[in-house]
């Protein structure tokens, strides 16, 4: 595909629109389901009285089938539209990688593969944290310093590979390093030392199982906390992050040769349309995924078994199933147990569980938002919007089962249902639309904290109060494009460090900064725009070979990108963007000393026309042809544009109706900006004085800022 085709092939779409579309598709599916149900009822009805003819039956069936197919195709298409290239996520690591390696005194080459792999946008966002942890670990723990590597007979420069690919319905992410690898026995010993297992227990374990100790909370083989990766915190978080996406983490490692971590993530988990049974339990609404619902039953109180006055159970199809009050199980006040019990039987991998609720509502197709790590309630996996625009909690059957068995969740903080509902009502958690991505500031720059808006300056940072609160036209588009540009620029800048003499690369970076400047200025963020202009000036000098690209220049460019990134983030949060004044000082060093070029303004009244031989010849020829020769004096006062531009345009308009022999200032002088607010032009035209006057008034006075004029007919 040519570059042109690529640009024509894409457009920006708001995620919120897509999610609404997804919601509507859900509605279509529900409608199509209800058509199917209605059809069946009609059929049954007619079957009993007068059987329906075959043709009608076939038509109903065909309509039902095609509406099913169309709605499922629609669903698939919307999911496809949400796909983004993993590139954006991968590129975000290039900068931190470089900084971390530098800080750790290691030489690391960062390679990415499969950047064009498509993943759901939400997955792409959720992968950031775990990959970030892993890369930090790879640099801090995995990769040896150059000296150690050379001693081991390896190249001094280590390799960290970040790779993505898709197989069937799974996305695979590999984080591979060629460092020292992990020793299963050392890990097992550390696990014993930390009381995670006993020596006899670990002795029986396979090397693979020993490795899995690193996923346990609080595990670390490195005694010293490092600034890079802390005290081994992370792998447990990595695992839970990936599991949240429905995925798993596989480790492969060879001592002395390196390690690879592979995430396997099912492609369709991020935003999902979930078939649910909705129920009311006291004041709360819940949605139980149909896949987990074995049955719904009404059981007379007398038929509920009570063992030792405590545990309750019911018999369902010959199986004894423990029964719990859903509210009580979730730590809320128990229901009013009167009349027959309304019971949902749930099934998870580890077993079955019956929960009593107040009322069955309806089966619904729901767009649900996983709770993720925003808030944790054991037994609740997400939030959703039910019919009637009511907020509901999505039941996690597996967690609920654990909870009923007294198995605590492996989380630091456990919330309650009522706290969660309160938070949703306060708008702290949004249902139906995926949660907004957690913005990650580049490490070198911190975003302007809230409250800085009022402050004029804060330490070494200048807050651009004039840019605050500006209404940005097409804000989301603008921010999205800015982010794209930033990501692209960030990657190119790092490539520039490797290839400082690549002119085309330099041009691309220049273009990126230039465009960012343009866009920021366009939306009225002129101060930020002029800041980027400073960075752009450096690039311009480098382009013209005036400056050598070294790591200091690369740092300036990266810092510049960071400032824009932080500003983008601030804008996204409705805060004031700020500028690193320290960076401005650094840039100042590299700026060309300003050439003092004071243009001399030509005094129009003191100068006559300089006509060359050709002009004089032309003048005679025109006069002989019956044209008039004029001298026109013009005063003009441009309001928005530079005088030289307006002067040039005035000359153009006069040459539209005649031939110019000369002007004061001359064209070259005008182009050198030696023009004030006056202009004298000698030219020949067919227009008589009256017509010329009219022309000057209707064109030059009206449109070209001419405030005063005088026409002299010379012959």
């Amino acid at each position, binding site marked *: 595909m040519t570059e042109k085709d690529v640009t024509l092939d894409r457009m920006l779409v708001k995620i919120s629109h897509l999610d609404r579309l997804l919601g509507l598709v859900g509605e279509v599916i529900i409608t199509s389901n209800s058509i199917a149900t209605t059809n069946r009822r009609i059929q049954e009805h007619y079957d009993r009285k007068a059987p329906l003819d075959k043709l009608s039956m076939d038509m109903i069936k065909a309509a039902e089938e095609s509406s099913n197919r169309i709605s499922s195709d629609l669903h698939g298409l919307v999911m496809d539209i949400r796909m983004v290239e993993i590139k954006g996520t991968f590129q975000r690591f290039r900068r931190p990688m470089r900084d971390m390696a530098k800080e750790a005194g290691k030489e690391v080459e960062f390679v990415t593969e499969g950047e064009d792999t498509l993943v759901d946008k939400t997955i792409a966002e959720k992968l950031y944290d775990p990959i970030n942890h892993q890369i930090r670990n790879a640099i801090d723990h995995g990769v040896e310093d150059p000296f150690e590597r050379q001693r081991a007979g390896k190249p001094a420069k280590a390799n960290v590979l970040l790779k993505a690919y898709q197989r069937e319905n799974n996305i695979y992410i590999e984080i591979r390093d060629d460092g020292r690898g992990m020793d299963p026995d050392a890990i097992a010993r550390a696990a014993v030392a930390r009381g995670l297992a006993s020596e006899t227990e670990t002795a029986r374990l396979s090397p693979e199982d020993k490795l899995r100790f690193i996923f346990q909370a609080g595990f670390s083989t490195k005694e010293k906390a490092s600034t890079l990766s802390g005290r081994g915190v992370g792998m447990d978080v990595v695992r839970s992050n990936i599991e949240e996406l429905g995925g798993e983490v596989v480790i492969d490692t060879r001592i002395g040769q390196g390690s690879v971590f592979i995430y396997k993530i099912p492609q369709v988990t991020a935003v999902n349309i979930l078939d649910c049974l909705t129920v009311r339990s006291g004041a709360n609404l819940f949605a139980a995924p149909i896949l987990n619902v074995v049955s719904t039953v009404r059981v007379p109180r007398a038929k509920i078994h009570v063992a030792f006055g405590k545990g309750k159970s019911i018999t369902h199809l010959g199986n004894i199933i423990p029964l719990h009050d859903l509210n009580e199980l979730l730590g809320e006040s128990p229901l009013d147990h009167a009349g027959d019990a309304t019971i949902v039987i749930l099934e998870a991998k580890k077993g079955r569980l019956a929960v009593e609720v107040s009322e069955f509502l309806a089966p619904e197709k729901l767009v649900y938002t996983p709770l993720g790590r925003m808030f944790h309630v054991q037994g609740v996996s997400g939030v959703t919007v039910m019919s009637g625009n009511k907020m509901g909690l999505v039941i996690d059957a597996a967690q609920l089962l654990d909870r009923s068995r007294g198995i605590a969740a492996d989380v630091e903080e456990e919330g309650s249902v009522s706290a969660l509902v309160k938070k949703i009502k306060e708008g702290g958690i949004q249902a139906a639309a995926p949660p907004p991505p957690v913005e990650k500031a580049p490490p070198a720059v911190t975003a302007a904290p809230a409250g800085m808006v009022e402050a004029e300056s804060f330490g070494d940072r200048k807050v651009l109060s004039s840019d605050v609160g500006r209404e940005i036209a*097409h804000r989301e588009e603008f921010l999205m494009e800015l982010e794209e540009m930033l990501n692209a620029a960030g990657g190119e800048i790092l490539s520039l460090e490797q290839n400082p003499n690549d002119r085309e690369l330099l041009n691309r970076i220049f273009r990126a900064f230039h465009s960012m400047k*343009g866009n920021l200025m366009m939306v009225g963020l002129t101060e930020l725009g002029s800041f980027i202009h400073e960075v752009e000036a450096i690039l311009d000098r480098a382009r013209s070979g005036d400056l050598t690209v070294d790591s200091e220049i690369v740092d300036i460019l990266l810092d510049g990108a960071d400032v824009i990134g932080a500003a983008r983030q601030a804008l996204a949060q409705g805060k004031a963007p700020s500028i690193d004044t320290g960076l401005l000082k650094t840039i100042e060093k590299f700026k060309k000393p300003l050439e003092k070029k004071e243009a001399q303004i030509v005094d129009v009244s003191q100068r006559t026309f300089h006509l060359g031989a050709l002009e004089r010849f032309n003048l005679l020829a025109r006069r002989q042809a019956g044209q008039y020769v004029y001298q026109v004096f013009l005063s003009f006062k441009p309001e928005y544009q530079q005088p030289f531009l307006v002067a040039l*345009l005035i000359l153009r308009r006069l040459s539209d109706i005649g031939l110019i022999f000369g002007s004061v200032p001359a064209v070259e002088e005008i182009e050198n900006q030696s023009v004030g607010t006056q202009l004298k032009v000698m030219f020949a035209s067919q227009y008589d004085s009256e017509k010329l006057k009219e022309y000057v008034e209707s064109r030059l006075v009206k449109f070209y800022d001419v405030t005063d004029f005088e026409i002299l007919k010379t012959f």
Partner: protein
Amino acid sequence: MVTGKTALVVDDYHSMRLTLKEHLQGFGFSVMEAENGLQGLEMARKDPPDIIFTDIVMPVMDGLELCQELKNDPALVGVPVVVLSTHADASYILKAIHNGADDYVPKPIEAPLLKKVVARLLHD
């Protein structure tokens, strides 16, 4: 003031095109959009607009090349071309003018200037 006239907006950034488009639609233009010079040229050839607005720095074909191409095309030479850019220094303005631009509007766009330039070039 320009009801029924068409304007072609050439800029590689959607948000920038949108902003300009809003201005122009406010004046009464119907607006066509292109993402780079080449696409703009092809659109102009297929369906000549009454006026063209172009950015300078764009991939594939930049605004200056576009100016040249337009002014070298007998069918399009009469269509006024306005270059818009954040480059405020004289050398860029001159480059645009020398390449055939009929006017130059600095970004950020000032609505009154845009209006004035449109009036200039479309004589009303």
